């Protein structure tokens, strides 16, 4: 019989800011850093909109997941100070 010890994983969040061109639906989606590098200016509304995407690496399968997906997982405990706390399992 194997006895497992439950431990808590702390996964850092990553926030990716993406600039959307609302006038041109075929325009490329750029990260904010790339946009500034190419256009040498900040994206200005109403033409541009910045969307923040928060992702983390799932400790179970090492795949990137949205934080809202993470919140639906049974292992999720809380989000605190830019980190996700979730249940891990080590035998």
């Amino acid at each position, binding site marked *: 019989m194997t006895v497992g010890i439950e431990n808590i994983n702390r996964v850092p969040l990553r926030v990716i800011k993406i600039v959307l061109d609302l006038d041109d639906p075929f325009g490329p989606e750029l990260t904010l850093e790339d946009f500034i590098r190419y256009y040498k200016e900040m994206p200005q509304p109403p033409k541009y909109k910045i969307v923040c995407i928060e992702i983390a690496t799932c400790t179970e399968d090492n795949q990137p997941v949205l934080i809202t997906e993470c*919140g639906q997982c049974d292992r999720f405990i809380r989000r605190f100070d830019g980190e996700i706390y979730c249940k891990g399992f080590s035998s």
Partner: protein
Amino acid sequence: MIKSNDLRVDEYFQSRGMQPLDISSLGLEKDNLKPDIAFTDSNNRIFVKIIDSGPLNERSALLDAVMKSVDFLKEANAAYLLLPKLYASIIDGKLFYNHGVGLLTYDKRGAIQEIIKPKIFSQINKENLVKMPEETLIEINNLNKRIRSLEQDFSKLKEELDELRVKKVNIETNEDGPKSYSLNAEIHDDAPEFMKDNPWIGILSKRGKD
């Protein structure tokens, strides 16, 4: 979709030794200070705000609930916000921690979990405050006035004393310099040898006469 009525919040708090409170008997006048459910552990009053797991129709709905739970601390010793687990991934728990509000989450099955502990604030019970008699208040005012006038007198006296000190120094120091002492002093013939033509004899003989 789970509604707040389906949650067994009572069970959760009662299993931790708390008793539910009748909100209408708390005498809360403002609506924003009224919790969805309240408990007591005989020493502390704990308010809970519950958010249903429906879609967040308004962008500010979640923020509003957070602000209300912070407001609860005006009337309660501790406050909790109970929200769906999914919403706990949207808001950073540090926000609650910094404001002393506890955070509870519930999952699809309705299981409640405490993920941030609240701070217990020791509040002054308004009913226990003793009203000060009118006579005591008048006496305190009179004493305040007397202390103020004494402080003014003291500062005046201090200034005068400083002035007097300056005047005394001026009198002691002559404009031509320090006082000159006569070195002449009567010395008897039978006086010892070292006393003859000794300038200190003149100086020492003047001591006590000035």
